């Protein structure tokens, strides 16, 4: 199975549900288990929320998701052109949040790492952030 899709939407919080549902529907072609699909939905929801809340912080930005299916692997890239992350090592630590007053739990990156097989974060200050998530479908990891 080889397939690819690209999704663009405004950085409005109302689009969080749309984004994870769209990715889940696309990944369904690989016939994942309900658990695998729930893992992917949760990780995508975290990445999209980060892009909306921390990347932009306003509803006029564009969040882009590309999703590639290659045999049994799914690769999801969530991109924002927002303010970027100054210290990725610090930002990906469990319980770290840049917005302690906004009731963020600081668990977003930890959830992505735990529920997916791999997570790579690339960021440039003032230019934006790319989070790449991969997961093998149909294998016990």
């Amino acid at each position: 199975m080889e397939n690819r899709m690209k999704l663009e939407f405004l950085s409005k919080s109302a689009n969080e549900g749309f984004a994870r549902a769209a990715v889940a529907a696309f990944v369904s072609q690989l016939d994942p288990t309900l658990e695998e699909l729930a893992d992917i939905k949760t990780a995508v929801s975290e990445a999209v929320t980060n892009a909306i809340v921390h990347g932009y912080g306003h509803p006029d930005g564009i969040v882009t998701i590309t999703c590639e299916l290659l045999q049994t692997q799914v690769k999801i890239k969530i991109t924002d052109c927002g303010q970027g992350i100054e210290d990725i090592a610090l930002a990906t630590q469990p319980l770290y949040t840049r917005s302690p007053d906004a009731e963020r739990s600081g668990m977003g990156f930890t959830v992505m790492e735990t529920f997916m097989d791999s997570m790579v974060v690339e960021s440039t200050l003032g230019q934006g952030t790319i989070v790449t998530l991969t997961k093998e479908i149909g294998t016990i990891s």
Partner: protein
Amino acid sequence: MEIALTLNQRTLIVSLSGELDHHGAEQIRTLIERAITEKDVKNLIFDFSALSFMDSSGIGMIIGRYKLIKSIGGGVALVCTNPRMKKLVTMSGLSRLISVYSTVDQALSEVKGA
């Protein structure tokens, strides 16, 4: 997401169904804060047994309300049976702050006895 608020004496039960994310968490926060102020609420029970999805925004929302209820001397409990949500609750350390139950009745007897 659907939200139902039920008052049992001074315990507010917040029952959610559907999907809880950052977008929905903002709505719930406002509703709960209003109910706590207007109804003289002391304890809070989050009933997530009918919730089909939650990300870490749900954890942040619970922690925020936990701080508020603790400041007025009340108790908070969570009703949750979904293994993935329970994993989030454990990972975040939330399970060290509040107890997780399988039914609302169990949670009610716990917070009222506290």
